C-alpha cells in the first residue's frame, strides 16, 4: 500500500498554514513541519511565527553545529534559534497565549482520535508506564485549530481514528483536522470528510481501513 512518508506528511501540513499564522508544533512528528515551511526569499514565502511553550515566539531553525545555546531550546529541549522580531516570555504568559485562544494552529501527535474529535496522546494507560503530560492538555484546548498528525494505522493494523478512544483522553472534541500517512480528514459537525488521499488508494479502501464512517 502506498503511504506518504513522514516528510511528505509534514510538507502537506505546512502547505495548509497560512500567512500570518501563530503556530505551535508539538514534539515528535509535528516538529518536522517546521522544516517544510517556505524559506525566506522563496517565491511562496509566508510569514509564520512558531511558538514554543517554554517561552519563545518567533522560533527559528536549529543552529549550525557549534552555535548551540543551552539557554535557547524548544519544548523538546533541542537547541533552536530566534528570528529577528522574536520574543521571550515566562511560562504563565506562554500558556496564556495558548489557553487564551491567541494561537491560530497547534499540530499534535496522537495515539487515537475519535470521530467527534476527542484526542488521546499523552498516556497509554499501561500499568507500568510513568505518566507524563507536559503541555499536551493545554495545547489541545487552547489553539483556534488543533490539527493531529499520526500514522493512520497502529503497528498491528488497527485504525487510530476510532468511534471512541480507548486510551486516556487528552481533551474532548478538540481536533479539527487529521493528517495521516494515507489521508487528510476534516472533522465536521456532519462527520469525517476526506480532503485528500494518497495516490493509488481508493476511498472505499480507505473506508475499509478506518474505524468510522467517512464521506468525500
Amino acid at each position: 500500500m502506498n503511504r506518504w512518508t513522514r516528510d511528505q506528511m509534514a510538507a502537506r501540513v505546512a502547505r495548509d498554514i497560512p500567512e500570518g499564522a501563530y503556530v505551535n508544533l508539538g514534539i515528535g512528528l509535528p516538529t518536522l513541519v517546521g522544516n517544510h515551511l517556505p524559506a525566506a526569499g522563496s517565491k511562496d514565502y509566508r510569514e509564520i511565527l512558531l511558538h514554543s511553550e517554554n517561552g519563545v515566539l518567533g522560533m527559528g531553525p536549529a543552529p549550525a553545529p557549534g552555535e548551540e545555546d543551552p539557554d535557547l531550546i524548544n519544548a523538546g529541549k533541542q537547541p533552536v534559534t530566534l528570528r529577528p522580531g522574536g520574543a521571550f516570555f515566562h511560562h504563565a504568559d506562554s500558556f496564556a497565549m495558548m489557553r487564551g485562544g491567541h494561537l491560530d494552529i497547534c499540530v499534535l501527535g496522537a495515539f487515537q482520535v475519535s470521530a467527534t474529535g476527542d484526542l488521546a496522546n499523552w498516556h497509554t494507560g499501561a500499568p507500568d508506564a510513568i505518566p507524563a503530560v507536559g503541555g499536551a492538555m493545554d495545547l489541545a484546548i487552547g489553539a483556534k485549530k488543533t490539527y493531529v498528525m499520526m500514522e493512520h494505522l497502529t503497528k498491528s493494523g488497527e485504525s487510530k481514528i476510532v468511534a471512541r478512544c480507548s486510551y486516556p483522553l487528552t481533551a474532548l472534541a478538540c481536533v479539527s483536522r487529521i493528517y495521516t500517512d494515507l489521508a487528510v480528514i476534516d472533522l465536521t459537525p456532519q462527520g469525517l470528510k476526506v480532503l485528500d488521499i494518497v495516490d493509488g488508494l481508493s476511498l472505499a479502501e480507505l473506508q475499509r481501513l478506518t474505524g468510522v464512517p467517512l464521506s468525500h
Partner: protein
Amino acid sequence: MIDKCVADTAAALQGVQDGATVMIGGFGGAGQPSELIDALIAQGARDLVVVNNNAGNGETGLAALLKAGRVRKIVCSFPRQADSQVFDALYRAGRIELELVPQGNLAERIRAAGAGIGGFFTPTGYGTELAKGKETREIGGRMHVFELPIHADVALIQAERGDRWGNLVYRKTARNFGPVMAMAATLTVAAVHEIVPLGGLDPEHIVTPGIFVQRVVQVPR
C-alpha cells in the same frame, strides 16, 4: 540599606526546613539553578515537596537531590524522559509520590499563588483523568475545571543579572518558570551570573521586580 545579596550558596539556603515545599525553576537544563540545588543537598533539608516542570535529568541537579533521598513528593508536568532514570527508579519502587499537572496549569497555579488568587477555572484537562474529583463549572458554554494555587516555602531560580534589591533579568528561554515561582514563595533565592549596581538594570526591562526576591547570590556561568 536593603542588601539581598548573600556571600555564597550556603548562606542562600540557610533556614530551609524539613518538609518544606521547594519550587525549582528550569525547563530541562535551561534555567535550572544547579548551584542552588547542590547547596540544598549540602544543607540537608529532608522530606521535601519539589515543584518543577520535570523530575530531573541525568544524575546531577534535581536528579541528584532525588537520588539523595530527600524528596517525598514531586509536582511536575513531565517526569518521564530519556534520562529520567533516577526518578523512574524511585517511582517504580514506590519511594516518591507524583502529582502530575498539565504544564499550563502548573504555571498558572504557581502564578495564582503569587498573585493572591484562590484558584481559577480552566478548560484544560476537562474530561480527563487529571481532572477526576475536581469541581467543574460551565462558563460561557464551555466546561471548566477548578484548580487551586500552589504556594511554596522556598523558590530556587536562576536569572542572568540582578542587583542588591533583587531586581532580575533572565536570558532567553532560561526565563521559563523563574518569574512566576519568584512570586509564589515565602523565600525566593535567585542565583545570578552577574550582580550589577542599583540602576544598572534598565527599569523598562526588569522582568522580576525585587519585591518578589529575598536573596541574591552570584554563581559562575
